[in-house]
């Protein structure tokens, strides 16, 4: 049930764009995106709940496809401060996961390195 994140790692130059994907074999209730810098706690970025939803701002945004099995995180015109490991945390839809109190299943993470 662990979501699959891709790519596992990506190296960018400042100003370049990146897309990180998070896929599930079953329909999801929600997707939560986090960024974790080395030695620090994961920090919440955004949550997506609705199929077809897109949210965020100009530089960092995310989408959730209509089937609610895939989410993508978009990093535009990357900055040095974007470096870190990005995780998606997924919450299964009730019909597929009998009885949850809201615990998330996290992907293995995507390590993003932005170089000057």
């Amino acid at each position, binding site marked *: 049930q662990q979501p699959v994140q891709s790519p596992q790692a990506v190296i960018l130059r400042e100003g370049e764009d990146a897309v990180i994907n998070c896929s599930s074999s079953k329909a999801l209730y929600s997707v939560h995106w986090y960024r974790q810098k080395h030695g620090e*706690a994961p920090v*919440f970025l955004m949550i997506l709940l609705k199929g077809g939803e897109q949210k965020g701002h100009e530089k960092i945004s995310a989408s959730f496809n209509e089937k609610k099995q895939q989410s993508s995180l978009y990093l535009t015109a990357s900055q040095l401060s974007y470096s870190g490991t990005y995780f998606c945390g997924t919450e299964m839809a009730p019909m597929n996961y009998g009885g949850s109190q809201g615990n998330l*299943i996290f992907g293995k993470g995507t390590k993003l390195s932005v170089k000057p």
Partner: protein
Amino acid sequence: DVKVTQSSRYLVKRTGEKVFLECVQDMDHENMFWYRQDPGLGLRLIYFSYDVKMKEKGDIPEGYSVSREKKERFSLILESASTNQTSMYLCASSLFSGLAGWNQETQYFGPGTRLLVL
């Protein structure tokens, strides 16, 4: 401001020792979680709790137990530490909300405890 604190940032223990990891949140959250984080494996859920004195097993509960006597505090216990429990341990909390009990609130993480078992 949201705050989740963990008792230690770094801990070194010997094999067979009993280890207590403490987590405290000051946000009046109902849900609390313990994860371990290992390179290449991501965050894996050990136990979680949605109320005082309530606990649920996560994906990897073997070798661990938990205690939640007060709403703000969630403890992870390694009854007899082993070298394969060397890891980064992260605590998180979240508000319980949403229709039919589904949590639409995100989780807030503590800074983590890096445990080394020798």
